[in-house]
């Protein structure tokens, strides 16, 4: 978490973020004590099941949560400024300009009644006082940059005339209009065909380099972040379970929940019957279990797990892990699990 200058400057730093929603049935603890940071050139993969708080934490960053219902505490520092302390108008000026966001469902995320070029031009004019023609031309340039063939003519089309993958490219173009420092992609490939998924991920990685920004890639699929992420944050029930450099997470995962995610991840080598689902279902965020939120589903739970909440323990290699198991025991268990799996496949 160095905040030095140069290309590795910290763009975004989330500190102890908690988001609660007051509902009729009680208070939902959507995000609890979450901290992470993002530097220029990083791709932070935030991985978790539905309802793990991965989207909510980023909607908080964008200022897109309705503060009438969401209680947000902690700090979200963007280039040193706490976004949570900004007035709505100040936040609006950052949104779409310094932080761009693309969403899960490209079919629903574009306005069905406006031409694609118009929607891009609107994004340009939201933060820049330029003529309609200039804004339109900038939009066409971006469509070209994200690989839409015949961009000049396509800009005059409506969203329903585009395929899902092309629409997601339009969304990416729209988020890049002002060359943002941070690009947040919320499950950008979930609604797309598998063949198109890889193209979109590649495109996101390419624009990260070309536009020199930091990317937050939210997904429920570890496979999605495997190729491009530099860092991985595993979330469960609104909390960070494991957090560290991507190669650490993939090669030396520490948390039993991460092991579960890794094992339920399909790869070419793995046969379907060897995919191991995680038993049970995520806990209610209205009444989260005491201690480690994963303990009711964890095979290795022991005395401390349902007591105090585990803190994030510092592991080797800048790796953080919220599990009470000792490093030696974890190594032993993980080797056994991998061994068992290799035995089946081999």
């Amino acid at each position, binding site marked *: 978490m160095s905040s030095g200058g140069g290309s590795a400057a910290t763009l975004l730093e989330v500190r102890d973020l908690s988001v609660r929603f007051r509902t009729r049935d009680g208070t939902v603890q959507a995000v609890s004590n979450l901290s992470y940071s993002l530097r220029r050139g990083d791709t932070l993969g935030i991985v978790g099941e539905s309802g793990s708080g991965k989207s909510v934490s980023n909607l908080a960053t964008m200022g897109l949560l309705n503060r009438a219902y969401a209680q947000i505490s902690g700090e979200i520092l963007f280039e040193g400024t706490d976004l949570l302390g900004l007035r709505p108008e100040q936040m609006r000026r950052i*949104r*779409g300009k310094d932080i761009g966001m693309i969403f899960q469902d490209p079919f629903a995320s574009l306005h*069905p009644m406006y031409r694609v070029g118009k929607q891009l031009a609107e994004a340009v004019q*939201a933060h820049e006082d330029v003529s309609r023609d200039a804004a339109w031309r900038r939009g066409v340039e971006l469509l070209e940059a994200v690989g839409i063939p015949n961009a000049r003519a396509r800009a005059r089309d*409506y969203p329903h005339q585009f395929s899902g993958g092309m629409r997601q490219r339009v969304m990416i173009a729209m988020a890049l209009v002002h060359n943002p420092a941070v690009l947040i992609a919320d499950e950008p490939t979930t609604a797309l065909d598998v063949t198109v998924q890889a193209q979109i991920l590649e495109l996101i990685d390419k624009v990260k380099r070309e536009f020199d920004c930091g990317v937050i890639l939210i997904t429920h699929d570890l496979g999605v972040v495997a190729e491009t992420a530099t860092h991985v944050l595993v979330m469960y029930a609104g909390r960070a379970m494991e957090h560290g450099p991507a190669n650490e997470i993939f090669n030396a995962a520490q948390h039993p929940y991460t092991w579960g995610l890794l094992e339920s991840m399909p790869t070419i080598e793995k046969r379907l019957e060897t995919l191991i689902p995680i038993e049970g279902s995520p806990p209610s965020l209205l009444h989260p279990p005491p201690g480690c939120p994963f303990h009711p589903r964890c095979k290795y739970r022991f005395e401390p797990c349902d007591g105090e909440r585990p803190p994030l323990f510092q592991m080797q290699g800048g790796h953080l892990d919220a599990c009470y198991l000792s490093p030696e025991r974890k190594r032993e268990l993980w080797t056994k699990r991998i061994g068992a799996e290799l035995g089946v496949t081999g």
Partner: protein
Amino acid sequence: MLIYIARRLIWTVVVIFAVVLITFVVFFKLPAGDPALRFAGRSPTTAELKLIRHRLHIDKPFYIEFGYFTKSFFLGDSNGWPGLGYSYEGDVPVIQEIEQRAPRTLCLIGGAAVIWLVFGVAIGVLSAVKRRTLIDRFAMGFALFGISAPVFWLGLMGLYIFWKTLHWTGGSGYVAFTQNPAAWFSHLILPWIVLALLYMAVYARLTRGNLLETLGEDYIRTARAKGLSERRVIFRHGLRASLTPIVTIFGLDVALLVGGAVITESVFNLQGLGWLAINSVFTQDLPTVLGVVLVGAAAVAIMNLLVDIAYAFLDPRVRYS
């Protein structure tokens, strides 16, 4: 687009023809008494009655009668096109009667429609944007009042307060615009407001519901994520998408009022088409009933066509499919 409109127009004619046929059958089968008797005036001779029956074609089976009617309708008669024949009451051409009544109804509907559309949508938007605040509750309370308050009561109260007591407006009755524009306005303002109030309430609720639903859409989140101002998000993105269902209902409401603004026309003694329709039903005046029904059916068909054309402009997805 032109082919589409032409095809729709042909269908419109078919629909109107069907409406005429149904109305014709209903009235022919009703035990109506002998129209010739009323048509002939006091104590007619048998020869006179026979002649009248022959002239009205009611001495023939009803399908031949209908044939004559259809023929003169499509080809016109001595009173011009469309040929609607003579009223059984007073030997007046039906077309002339309608020409006299239609402007009153159209003026009433036109003014009221502008008021209810503008204020209804405005109140709905305000209510949706200020959801769950005092403004929203007040607006929706007002809407409930507008929907619940009977038009005849509102009309009479309006007349009592603004005409009889305060002398702010003209009283009941209709003054032609060409005759005296100021009096025209002063006589119509109360009926406009009274008729508009009911629809305004419905439109306010409709707009509120639609807009709230639209504001929950993903593309609204995208608009916010772009950093657009809240005003632009609500009006350019939210309201734009909520308008289509409102346009549909609007077209239908206006069309139905052409023959159906009966209560308002009666309370304010405007003697428009609704009034004409009711009167001719009571007097079993078949040609006039048919005439009004035709105008009403044509209004519905034409408004539907206009709504469909408006749709193509409002929603690009319709245009291309």
